[in-house]
């Protein structure tokens, strides 16, 4: 008799098919959408990716960080520095920014991992503040008021405006898809099993031989890398950077957390649902300004108290749905008769 591990359930084939169709449709957006549509879609992709990464960190690795804006800003500033000060092509600067952030995230992790739980959360926030304050001291990049991308660098992305829009749109789509794919692959790997065990019962996982510290460290660094690349791309699209925008708690942490909470923590599908809900709310309610933000806060609180698993959590529990093939089943097969 042999034993093997199979992934996924029956419904997953439908989910994968839907995903492929959606991807194709979105990739064709430059042909059916206008400039505003592309920008909105790019924003959605960025938030789906950012929320998925935060979900990986908090929902799976148990690292609740309120300071991921540190890496968004770090990625953005790295790109601007590389492009403006060192003349490196802006598109290549995106992955380079990711690597810089990954490198810096190592000493940061060594520090903040000394804190646990809520204290870890605030510690990450303080690190982000340190990054922000340091960035505002760098006069070469505009200090406290920031700077714009010089025309020469903008041209280096692509010769025409239309091409620039399309290029950055596709990069956004690819990057988000890559982040999601990476997360799925990670969760299907040995580390993924470790993460799920850690999510459910850390002590038991440690006793079963899971190297909790190393797994958390790995996830933290990978998340930093991906988050930084997203930050680099976001601000490349904006063409302008400033410390307050790059390291904004509201934009890169508060909204991300709300998305993940509303969609459902600890499940991959959650951030996707959450982002769609978030943007639907934003398109309809954003005119209300501060009241809109208050409502977001209220919604997050109500969901946490009433439905802590978020929208997808409730749906999945009720109907047993799962879009991404992640669930492991152990199959026992009879050895083939000779």
């Amino acid at each position, binding site marked *: 008799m042999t034993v093997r591990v199979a992934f996924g359930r029956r419904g997953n084939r439908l989910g994968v098919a839907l995903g492929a169709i959606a991807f194709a449709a979105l990739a064709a957006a430059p042909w059916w959408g206008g400039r505003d549509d592309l920008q909105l879609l790019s924003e959605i992709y960025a938030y789906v990716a950012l929320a998925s990464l935060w979900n990986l960190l908090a929902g799976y690795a148990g690292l609740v960080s*309120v300071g991921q804006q540190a890496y968004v800003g770090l990625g953005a500033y790295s790109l601007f520095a590389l492009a403006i000060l060192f003349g490196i092509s802006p598109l290549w600067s995106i992955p380079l920014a990711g690597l810089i952030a990954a490198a810096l995230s190592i000493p940061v992790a060594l520090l903040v991992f000394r804190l646990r*739980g809520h204290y870890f959360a605030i510690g990450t926030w*303080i690190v982000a503040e*340190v990054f922000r*304050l340091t960035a505002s001291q760098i006069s070469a990049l505009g200090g406290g008021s920031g700077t714009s991308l010089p025309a020469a660098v903008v041209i280096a992305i692509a010769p025409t405006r239309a091409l620039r829009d399309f290029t950055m749109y596709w990069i956004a789509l690819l990057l988000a898809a890559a982040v999601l794919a990476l997360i799925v692959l990670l969760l299907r790997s040995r580390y993924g099993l470790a993460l799920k065990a850690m999510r459910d019962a850390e002590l038991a996982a440690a006793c079963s031989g899971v190297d909790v510290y190393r797994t958390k460290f790995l996830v933290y660094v990978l998340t930093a890398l991906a988050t930084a690349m997203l930050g680099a791309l976001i601000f490349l699209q904006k063409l302008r950077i400033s410390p307050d925008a790059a390291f904004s708690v509201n934009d890169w942490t508060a909204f991300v957390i709300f998305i993940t909470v509303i969609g459902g923590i600890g499940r991959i599908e959650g951030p996707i649902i959450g982002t769609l809900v978030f943007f639907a709310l934003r398109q309809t309610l954003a005119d209300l300004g*501060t009241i809109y933000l208050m409502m977001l*806060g*209220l919604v997050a609180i109500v969901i*946490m*108290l009433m439905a802590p698993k978020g929208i997808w959590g409730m749906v999945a529990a009720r109907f047993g749905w799962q879009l991404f093939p992640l669930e492991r089943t152990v199959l026992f097969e009879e050895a083939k008769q000779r």
Partner: protein
Amino acid sequence: MEWINVILQGVLVGGLYAMFAAGLSLIFGVMRLVNIAHGDLIVLAAYVALVATQTFGIGPLTALIIVVPVMAIIGYALQWFVLNRTLGEDLLPPLLVTFGLSVIIQNGLLTAFTADNVKLQAGGIEVATIRLAEGLYVGVLPLLQFAVAVAVIAGLQFIFYRTAIGRAFRATADDPAVAQLMGLDNRRVFALAMAASLAVVAIAGVFLAVRANFDPSQGPARLIFGFEAVIIGGLGSLWGTLAGGLILGVAQAVGAHLDPGWQILAGHVAFLIVLAARPQGLFAKVHT
């Protein structure tokens, strides 16, 4: 002499930071909850004081009589109706709920009071100084504030270690289930602890309001200072929290003296150094 002055100013502002931290330290000690809205509640208290002084035409220090009970009641209700439901094994619910609360308070204040800077006037006491020595002056208000901070910490210490309710706090923190066997309703104990925490927040808020301009967005910074003071001083020790506040204040003062733009950064650096060198804090109580 110049440096002594710098350090002195740092010590005095450190008292205020210790007050920010004391409330945080208290509720973490009793129920393992870190209130992300803590700083915003300090700012809320400042605005309550503003409303009180404007409505009744009283001075800020007199307004304490109104602000402290108001904030204590808010704390009790907040814990009873909202935060008690988030307590448990998982640390996400209380963290996210208090985060949501922070957003609501900030934007609520923004809606009610706009983003304009305001400040409470305390009259002549604000500019009065005492001459300690040749070239060494200290403001009466900062000195008063420091004395109040020490008194608050001493008061909390007294409550915790010499009263029945303090025993109840410590017992419930040790073992909520066995505490129930003593006839203690956990929900009430936690609500009382939050009320006490916000009473301290009220005092801190009023002093903040008198000391400098404030606006709705200042909450997170106060939370971070309070948090840094707690970590530098060490968890579980109220006097340690005072020490942490003082160290933070001095670090900021030194940083500001070297370059005004480095003030806050210097505080963060001090925090990170303590975190790197002695993560349990300088005066942590070792628990079995």
